[in-house]
């Protein structure tokens, strides 16, 4: 059986499983629809939250982003896990006690203001759509490989599947489907990693293998450092980037996590306040399973790619074009070449592909001596690394098919969760609560579907030319969440007197400052070519990249809110009593709509 058929069977089976579960556990009422996880064991709830949370960015993109940079991109690992600490300590238990369904609901009620609700809806839409662009970019890569089409065709197929999935099955937001998706994605991620760890280091656990000796007896990371520096690249384990930016980027991802509407939503509906605290922990258990494996996947893939390009070692001859065409071990290069996401060019016409850093001065001297004419592995999209990894390591066909299914599970479960957040923000928080309270149930559903379709269309068009690799785009969404929603929710709980004027002013300043900073470097509304400054470290303010700037904008959000509060009347007594009551667990009822 060829790989294509095998891919179709495995991906088809995984989809059949999700649809089967969705039909079996169909939600009957609105309250079930929102609170489907009530009565579900906290461990299963944690798995579902993990599936909701881990998207194409975590699964498809992150290890590749780490692999090509090394230590400096550990920021993604710390940032996307550390936010759960903030959720458990600062937000989840209080939002659960408050007992509403959506983030704009909380902000609108706590700040007793329709304006605050509308600003929260706008922030939510900007965050979620940016996030979906990243998902679409990642899902497009997965579809292009497994259906063997170009990356833009893959993206259009992905958007059609996401639309059907979100409107039909995913809309129900059923916890058990997400549990199944978690199982598929974690198995798909860890099995290849275990195989590769055994191949390279003889160690079963990739988390240990990363720090073990390879077959030559040298520690894997030391060996990798040596290979890379010999080719003019930066050492994998060393720190090269701007330290301030590294700290701010990590912090932006952390507080962004705690401000993400589709993550926060899950904690509104756990049975008890004490469960809200622990459920953040259970979610992190299942997230950590992937996040502690990811750095091993990245380092080992970089190691495998480098040694394959230099089969005789970096002082010997590079891999020949003939070997790439004929040797089975190099099939992955031919497979990925068809997607247009991997490319090479024999610039010096020697029949070999030299992979090295041609920007390094030392390497230019060596290149002149050895007759090289620039790096010949000309295109390597970071987002293909995880999906290509089993092929690079020569693993069996079913493992390769499994990783395609896992990548799609990750992208679909998160995209569906985000689209649900988008559609409920438009239909419930905006139309029903503000614009047209008398809207019929049917009209509300129609508005929900239309807003989903529009969101997917925008995300797909922008995903054709994404402003970065999937994980980088998603990081920008976190910068926006950090700047707008997190500070406001936090002040809503930790300040009894914060009033509506202060909250609205803070949110607007945070959101607008971060948006303008992002658009200056990646283009207005993410449209390629409309950026006013090139998106490079030299142009950034104090070397702070757009996503990291979310922290600066968040600080501005806090400052503006408190300055305005000092000039206006504090929140009325009944609101202060409300804040008092959400601080104690006793008396928590079930979550309710208006």
């Amino acid at each position, binding site marked *: 059986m060829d790989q294509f058929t095998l891919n179709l069977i495995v991906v088809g089976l995984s989809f059949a499983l999700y649809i089967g579960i969705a039909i079996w556990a169909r939600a009957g009422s609105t309250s079930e629809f929102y609170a489907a996880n009530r009565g579900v064991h906290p461990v299963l709830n944690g798995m579902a939250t993990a599936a909701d949370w881990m998207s194409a960015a975590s699964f498809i993109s992150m290890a590749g982003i780490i692999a090509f940079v090394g*230590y400096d991109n*550990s920021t993604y*690992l*710390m940032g996307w*896990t*550390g936010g*759960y*600490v903030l959720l*458990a*300590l*600062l937000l989840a*238990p209080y939002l659960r006690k408050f007992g509403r369904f959506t983030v704009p609901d909380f902000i609108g009620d706590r700040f007793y203001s329709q304006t605050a609700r509308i600003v929260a809806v706008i922030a939510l839409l900007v965050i979620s759509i940016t996030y979906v662009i990243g998902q679409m970019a990642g899902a497009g890569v997965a579809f292009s490989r497994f259906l063997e089409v170009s990356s833009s065709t893959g993206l259009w197929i992905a958007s059609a599947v996401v639309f059907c999935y979100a409107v039909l099955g995913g809309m129900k937001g059923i916890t058990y489907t997400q549990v199944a998706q978690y199982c598929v994605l974690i198995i798909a991620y860890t099995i290849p990693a275990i195989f590769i760890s055994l191949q390279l280091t003889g160690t079963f656990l990739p*988390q240990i293998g*990363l*720090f*073990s*000796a390879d077959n030559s007896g*040298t*520690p*894997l*990371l*030391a*060996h990798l*450092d040596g290979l890379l520096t010999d080719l003019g690249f930066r050492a994998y*384990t060393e*720190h090269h980037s701007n*330290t301030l930016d*590294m*700290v701010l980027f*990590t*912090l932006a991802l952390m507080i962004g996590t705690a401000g993400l509407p589709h993550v926060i939503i899950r904690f509104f509906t756990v049975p*008890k*306040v*004490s469960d809200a*605290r*622990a459920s*953040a*922990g259970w979610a*992190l*258990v299942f997230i*950590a399973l992937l*996040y*502690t494996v990811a*750095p091993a996947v990245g380092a080992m893939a970089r190691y495998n790619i480098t040694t394959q390009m230099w089969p005789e070692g970096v002082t010997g001859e590079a891999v020949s074009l003939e070997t790439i065409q004929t040797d089975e071990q190099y099939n992955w290069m031919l497979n990925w070449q068809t997607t247009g996401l991997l490319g090479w060019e024999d610039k010096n016409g020697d029949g070999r592909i030299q992979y090295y850093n041609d920007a390094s001065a030392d390497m230019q001297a060596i290149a002149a001596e050895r007759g090289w004419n620039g790096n010949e592995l000309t295109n390597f999209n970071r987002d293909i690394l995880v999906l290509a990894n089993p092929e690079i390591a020569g693993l069996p066909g079913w493992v390769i098919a499994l990783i395609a299914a896992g990548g799609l599970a990750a992208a679909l479960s998160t995209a569906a969760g985000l689209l649900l957040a988008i559609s409920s923000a438009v239909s419930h928080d905006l139309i029903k609560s503000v614009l047209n309270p008398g809207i019929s149930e049917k009209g509300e559903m129609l508005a929900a579907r239309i807003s989903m379709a529009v969101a997917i269309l925008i995300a797909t068009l922008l995903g054709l030319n994404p402003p970065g690799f999937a994980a980088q785009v998603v990081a920008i969404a976190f910068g926006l969440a950090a700047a707008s929603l997190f500070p406001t929710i936090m002040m809503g709980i930790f300040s009894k007197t914060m009033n509506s004027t202060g909250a609205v002013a803070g949110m607007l300043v945070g959101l607008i400052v971060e948006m303008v900073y992002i658009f200056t470097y990646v283009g207005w509304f993410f449209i390629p070519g409309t950026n006013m400054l090139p998106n490079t470290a030299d142009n950034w303010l104090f070397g702070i990249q757009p996503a990291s700037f979310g922290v600066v904008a968040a600080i501005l959000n806090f400052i503006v809110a408190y300055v305005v509060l000092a000039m206006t009347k504090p929140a009325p007594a009944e609101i202060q009593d409300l804040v*008092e009551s959400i*601080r*104690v*667990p*006793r*008396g*928590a009822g079930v979550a309710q709509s208006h």
Partner: protein
Amino acid sequence: MSDKSASAYWAANIRLITICLVIWAVASFGLGILLRPLLSGIPVGGTDLGFWFAQQGSILTFLVLIFFYAARMNKIDREFGVDEQ
């Protein structure tokens, strides 16, 4: 619940949150990034302890922290009689 015990309960909570957040920051921003040069003398599998904290240790610390906070808060809830019955 009286105002006095309400503010004592909240103060106990804030104290616990502060302790946890200090550990949270030290494990990630501290040991993983800013203090890494100080840890460079402690080798871990071909690199140093700071690298391990940035890619493994911080995540494990976060896990322990959340469950620690949840357990301690449950205890504080019961002490102040504000736990859910």
